[in-house]
């Protein structure tokens, strides 16, 4: 039964990982750049939610809804202020620019909020679970996270497939220059993609903060997992990102069930195995066509 519980908890963990990886995946898919400040943007989102919830006295869930548009604007600013210039000089400089931003963000957050750990208090939701037999428990917060992850990634998939902006994003991702020829403003498309990506980072940060605790230095650790999720799932594939999150989460919990020291290593092993045997990722077929 412990094995079943490990898989259940792995899926719940996968929900958080998928949320974390969503924006990273989108930004890579559209702009072909790895945003190394993604984890720190998630931490920024968590801080904004914490500050807003405390200042106005509202539930963190409600605060998240208000913070998401703000994070979207941060994304636009990131694109307009840093990435658009950096992208013109090549992939490497945009990666370096986001790496620099990551360090700036960490230190600004440390300066403002100190090194204290914080948590988003969602009351009994964080600690309650639905008991299925003696050793299997489905935490309410975990289930909610998975539901949000599925809705978010599904919604984005729909947006890309069915809407005008979605088509523009896909066209730009496939070939920005040609897309410009048919009248698509790639600057606008990039701004939209960055806005969505950073907003989802904020969402991921908020859910992580409810599940655990957070501090200004937490970003890079979670970025590593998000990066693994994107690679496992397949670069640029949103359903792949969801699947990748679940695979990494389950790998870690099942690894821990064998021996706690294997938890993170098992995740890395799956990541390496995917790189070695299926470099396009689990659901990464689409990229070969683009």
């Amino acid at each position: 039964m412990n094995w079943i519980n490990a898989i259940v908890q792995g899926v719940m963990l996968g929900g958080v990982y998928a949320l974390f990886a969503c924006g990273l995946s989108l930004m890579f898919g559209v702009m072909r750049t790895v945003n190394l400040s993604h984890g720190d943007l998630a931490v920024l989102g968590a801080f904004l939610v914490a500050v807003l919830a405390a200042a106005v006295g509202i539930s963190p869930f409600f605060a998240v809804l208000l913070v998401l548009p703000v994070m979207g604007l941060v994304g636009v600013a990131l694109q307009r202020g840093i990435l658009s210039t950096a992208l013109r000089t090549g992939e490497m400089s945009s990666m370096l620019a986001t790496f620099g931003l990551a360090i700036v963000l960490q230190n600004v957050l440390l300066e403002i909020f100190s090194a204290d750990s914080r948590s988003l208090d969602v009351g009994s939701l964080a600690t309650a679970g639905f008991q299925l037999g003696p050793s299997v428990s489905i935490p309410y917060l975990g289930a909610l996270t998975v539901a949000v992850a599925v809705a978010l990634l599904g919604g984005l998939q729909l947006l890309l497939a069915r809407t005008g902006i979605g088509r523009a994003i896909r066209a730009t991702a496939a070939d920005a220059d040609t897309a410009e020829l048919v009248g698509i403003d790639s600057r606008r498309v990039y701004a939209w993609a960055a806005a969505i990506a950073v907003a989802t980072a904020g969402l991921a940060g908020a859910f992580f903060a409810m599940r655990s605790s957070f501090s200004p230095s937490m970003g890079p650790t979670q970025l590593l997992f998000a990066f693994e999720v994107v690679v496992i799932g397949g670069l640029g594939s949103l359903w792949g990102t969801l699947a990748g999150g679940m695979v990494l989460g389950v790998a870690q919990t099942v690894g821990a069930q064998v021996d706690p020291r294997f938890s993170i290593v098992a995740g890395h092993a799956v990541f390496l195995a995917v790189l070695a045997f299926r470099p396009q990722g689990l659901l990464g077929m689409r990229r070969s066509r683009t």
Partner: protein
Amino acid sequence: MSAPMTGNLSRRSVLRGTAGAAGLLSTGGLLTACGGIKESSAQSDAVLRIGYVSPTTGPAAGFGEPNAYLMKKMRAAFKGGLKIGGKKYSVEIIDRDSQSNPQNAAQVATDLINGEKIDLMLVTSTPETVNPVADACEAAKIPCLSTAVPWEAWYFGRGATPEKPFTYTYHFFIGVAEIHAAYTSLWTEGGVKTNKRVGVMWPNDPDGKAIRDGLGPQLKKSGFTIVDPGAYEDGTNDYSAQIAAFKKADAEIFNTFPLPPDFATFWKQARQQGYRPRIASIAKTGLLPSQVEALGPLGYGLSAGFWWTPKFPFTSTLTRQYGFELAEEYEKSTGRQWTQILGSNMALFEVAVHALKETSDPKDRGELAAALGKAKLTTVVGPLDWTSGPVKNVSTEPLVMAQWRKAAKGSSFPLEPVIVDKNSFRDIPLGGSLEPLD
């Protein structure tokens, strides 16, 4: 050795004597990450340079919290210089941030030794910061004093043996023996009945390794059953496997040495999955009020070892303040709750000054190192004595157990640690008895 805790001591007179320390308001926040403030002295050419390394940023930054306050206080205390062997020396403290990271700690140590030409190194908080700095000092023959790492992790972790001790590096802190004595005392005499089965989460890092090798066997000897699912990596995001093992073994006592987010994840998951120990003793994360506060009501009732609290009846040899006066001043000037690392880091400077004054030439590295090895004094954290330590380079200090409780109404802070087990230290007053969780 120890002065009694008195209420009739005139606080004003003490404060007046501390070089106007109350005016040394800290602005809080970051210390300059790359460079300390240097003080120059016009009166003498002889300058003693003291390097100070501590984590101000990075995962262990919580331990660096009192640095800004302490630096100002120490610089004020050294303003008049030190008179040693009939000669006057001005004192310069050069502080550096280790960024909680061993590579960076080694880097700043090398810079302090070769670039700043320091005479003495002080280093504090976590093996990741302290060990590489001490190693660099031992190699460069620079006297170094450190604290806030369990001494076994500092001593054996750096490859010393009683036959082959260090020459230039000295340390004071608690060790496995103190932790063992404090835990067993609390868990058996504390007033909460248990089945003596201890679920442990000791991570795969220097602290965790020292504890697993040292504390584990000793707890078994004292009649506890250890339920150890194995070492986990720091940064793990799921603890279901451990929770399942603890539930299966019905571990009524829980102990861990975690990083803050790891413990928050574990403790919430333990609730979700129905693991509720009667006693939970949390090292590392459980030591600092800010980290326990992050857990909200889930933090009430956790217990932790304290190597210093303002209730300790000792005074600082540098500022002549009692512990409670130091804590009050710290809270007033920073707006933050006192932490036990404040006492340790103050004591670091106390021992440094004591040793410097024992030498005939404080610039003589060999003589200064020997003076550290012979030091015996009572600091704000209590009596320290390198002549009777467990090994040559180490002095140990008292450890008591306190339980985090909701602070009384009117307190500026949400939590208050109440000393619930004073172990064998009769000078330290008890605040109450241990309450079971829930």
